[in-house]
């Protein structure tokens, strides 16, 4: 990948964005590209035959499309779970967060994560040999953009739009890429990967598809945001149900489940690595999550459809390593975790986590990271290779710590500087009318 620094972009970003977001959005790239185009030459080293690259591009493309579609799933899962007066807001948050994530991750996030200088070279280079790098960016963007989508579900129905969007941009642009780099790409980065691996005699931390890096991190980031926001008005004094639409909730869950196979299987990143084991492990964990949830929740649709997700979240880490039956167990336990932790969180501790993203992504994701260390055992559990429990634990704890610190700092700052909570009046009329000036079903106004 040919890399070029582009100081113009940086300056432009700093100077203008605050003032005239819109203008710069349109003019900036033109200037930047023009300025840059003149001097970019030289292709990256080519280490695969063209047809192999085509195969990988196609593979990553399929993955990117599948995981991109999951964002529709996030939108509808949230839309179905919140009250009717906040449905439009759920849709807008997910779509706009996606857009902002794309920009920030393109400009700084991905370069940080991969330890390179950025994409500011000529399209000719980007397109031909390096098209693989672009599609890889797209694929990992679909993961990065899960961070705001996860947080969105926890803070629903009472958060301001702009401040949260800016906070999310910081997380996707910096905090997440740092974690990604530490745990996925570069064991030498700040010495984190090495230090963790040293706990297990050099067995590296394994998080195949992001139980820890994506889900746990997102879930534990949401916790500070939820705490800083406080519960929704009357959430704990009122007897009213706070879920509006089970069919849309289920639709969101289905879209997520289907897309998840892209999330997990395509994490092999190269078509040669495609693995039936990863697919079937994802399947078994999902099914474990469904069955455990349906039993323990007495056939509650909210728990069951989220239980499937809990299983899928927990299996990301170990899906290339553990045995399908172990995957089933990991998923089933994740389903129970969601059930119990959600109840404890929201009813005992009265933490108003609307979709339950902390127990779902945070706790079940952490469980996934640790579970890979338990079931990643060739002798005992028929795994494909041995992972180290302490390494997995340490990596997981590291992600949690980073999430809590980043979350409190960034959302704390946002609260302090801009305020992150809707006014009481706006919360009563609902975010749809307050922010978007329209309701989800406008004809109903008579």
């Amino acid at each position: 990948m040919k890399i070029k620094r582009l100081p113009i972009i940086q300056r432009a970003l700093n100077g203008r964005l605050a003032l005239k977001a819109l203008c710069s959005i349109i003019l900036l790239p033109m200037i930047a590209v023009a300025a840059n185009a003149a001097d970019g030459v030289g292709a990256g080293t080519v280490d695969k035959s063209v047809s192999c690259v085509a195969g990988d591009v196609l593979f990553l493309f399929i993955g990117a499309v599948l995981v991109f579609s999951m964002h529709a799933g996030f939108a509808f899962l949230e839309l179905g779970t919140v009250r009717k007066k906040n449905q439009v807001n759920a849709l807008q948050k997910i779509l706009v967060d996606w857009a902002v994530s794309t920009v920030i991750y393109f400009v700084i996030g991905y370069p940080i994560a991969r330890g390179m200088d950025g994409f500011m070279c000529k399209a000719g280079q980007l397109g031909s040999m390096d098209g693989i790098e672009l599609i890889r960016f797209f694929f990992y963007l679909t993961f990065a953009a899960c961070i705001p989508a996860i947080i969105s579900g926890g803070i629903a129905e009472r958060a301001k739009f702009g401040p949260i969007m800016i906070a999310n941009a910081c997380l996707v642009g910096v905090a997440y890429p740092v974690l990604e780099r530490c745990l996925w790409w570069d064991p030498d980065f700040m010495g984190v990967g090495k230090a963790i691996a040293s706990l297990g005699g050099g067995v590296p931390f394994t998080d195949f598809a992001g139980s820890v890096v994506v889900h746990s991190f997102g879930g534990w980031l949401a916790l500070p945001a939820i705490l800083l926001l406080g519960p929704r008005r009357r959430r704990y004094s009122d007897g009213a149900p706070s879920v509006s639409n089970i069919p849309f909730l289920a639709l969101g869950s289905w879209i997520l489940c289907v897309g998840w196979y892209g999330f997990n299987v395509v994490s092999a990143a190269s078509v040669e690595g495609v693995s039936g084991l990863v697919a079937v492990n994802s399947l078994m964990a999902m099914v474990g999550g469904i069955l455990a949830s349906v039993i323990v929740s007495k056939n509650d649709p909210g728990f069951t459809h989220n239980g499937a997700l809990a299983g899928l979240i927990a299996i990301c880490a170990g899906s290339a390593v553990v045995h399908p039956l172990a995957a089933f167990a990991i998923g089933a336990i994740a389903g129970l975790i969601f059930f119990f932790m959600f109840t404890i969180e929201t009813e005992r501790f009265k933490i108003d986590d609307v979709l339950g993203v902390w127990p779902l992504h945070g706790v079940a994701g952490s469980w996934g990271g640790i579970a890979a260390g338990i079931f990643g055992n060739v002798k005992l559990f028929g795994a494909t290779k041995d992972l180290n429990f302490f390494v997995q634990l340490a990596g997981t704890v590291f992600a949690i710590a980073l999430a809590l610190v980043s979350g409190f700092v960034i959302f704390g700052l946002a609260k302090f500087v801009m305020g992150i909570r809707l006014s009481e009046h706006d919360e009563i009329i609902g975010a749809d009318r307050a922010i978007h000036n329209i309701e989800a079903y406008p004809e109903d106004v008579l």
Partner: protein
Amino acid sequence: MKKIEAVIQPEALEKVKEALFDADIYKMTVHRVRGCGQQRGYSESYRGKIYQVNLLEKVKLEIAVNEEFVKPAINAIIKGARTGNIGDGKILVTDLNQCVRIRTGEEGNGAIG
């Protein structure tokens, strides 16, 4: 002229309508409402949160009639709606001062049917 209002079980609507038609009463206005009475509500639960539903689905009929139809209307409603179970509902009758047919401007007893 009287106005008859009846709250019944949604299940009973079809039969009540038939009974009214049989009694030559063809005009009515129907609301979907929720009612609370002797009939116990029920509880639902969503992801562990339990909430009480004590307003149950009901249907309310409004029928404006001339005096001579009051009794037949009440009987028809009872005929269609009575199951003997709690929750069958209630019929209320109030005086009606005036009735106007919008289409013609016609007033009073003639306008009602």
